[in-house]
């Protein structure tokens, strides 16, 4: 039974180099918890997108990772927090192709499709927190879209 050692962490997101740390940590944590290669890759990619959002749009912040359990299912929870300008229109920000930073506009919506649970809290002028959870096996996924 994997424990939380090596999974729990709070990583700063201040520069491009920190994104490398975030990706490496998420890959390691996902591997420790027993995620398969595909799920590992999905999580790392989602973390990469969200961490870049934190850096580019939020002006830097941090990522908290934790091991979570529900009904004997084990999962990895990643929370990305920043104290940036916040997101005024959540629907617009989550829609594919919309970008305010010169990217492809696939980051936020794409990250939502790569994980099992996705929640976005943002207050204009205060900051944004994106929390994602993926479950190791038999994900309890009550999800509306596909």
């Amino acid at each position: 039974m994997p424990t939380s050692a090596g999974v729990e962490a709070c990583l700063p997101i201040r520069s491009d180099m920190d994104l490398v740390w975030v990706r490496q940590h998420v890959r390691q944590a996902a591997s420790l918890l027993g995620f398969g290669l595909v799920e590992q890759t999905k999580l790392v990619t989602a973390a990469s997108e969200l961490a870049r959002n934190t850096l580019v749009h939020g002006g830097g912040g941090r990522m908290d990772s934790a091991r979570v359990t529900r009904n004997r299912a084990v999962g990895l929870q990643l929370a990305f927090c920043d104290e940036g300008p916040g997101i005024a229109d959540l629907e617009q920000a989550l829609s594919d192709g919309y970008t305010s930073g010169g990217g492809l506009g696939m980051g936020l919506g794409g990250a939502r499709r790569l994980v099992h649970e996705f929640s976005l809290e943002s207050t204009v002028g205060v900051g944004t927190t994106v929390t994602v959870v993926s479950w190791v096996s038999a994900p309890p996924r009550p999800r509306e879209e596909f």
Partner: protein
Amino acid sequence: MGTLRLVVLDTALSEGQALIERQQLQLLEVATPVIKLWDGIVAVPLIGTLDSARSQVVMETLLEAIVEQHARFAILDITGVPTVDSLVAQHLMKTVAAARLMGAECVVSGIRPAIAQTIVHLGLDLGTVVTRASLADALAYALHELGSGIISPATGGAGPR
């Protein structure tokens, strides 16, 4: 004594910073060789994280190589890239578009199964880019498009396989 300590600390820190900067520059240089695979076919094996600085270097060296080698095909092999997110995909597509302007067709190879699934879930559209599973497939495709091919000696005659 306190001043000396501060000076020593300051020197050590700035030396460390200089070392890191030198190593970053070294990394940029070593990480992007352009290999001539055949007449008119060049390949770039991409390894590690493809951030903005590195993808800029890749694009420059690749475009120069296309001119030098009169390349018609450029193969970008991403076997060594651990994560393909939307920024990496954007860099790849920009490189492909720039190469196309130079008259070379780009083939992206080395897309692993896990990465392929991730790209699909992420919603990235690489439909405009020719992709192949392995470098060998990409080379075979480029050779075929150039009108040459590799014939097995078993059907053609003598010679080592």
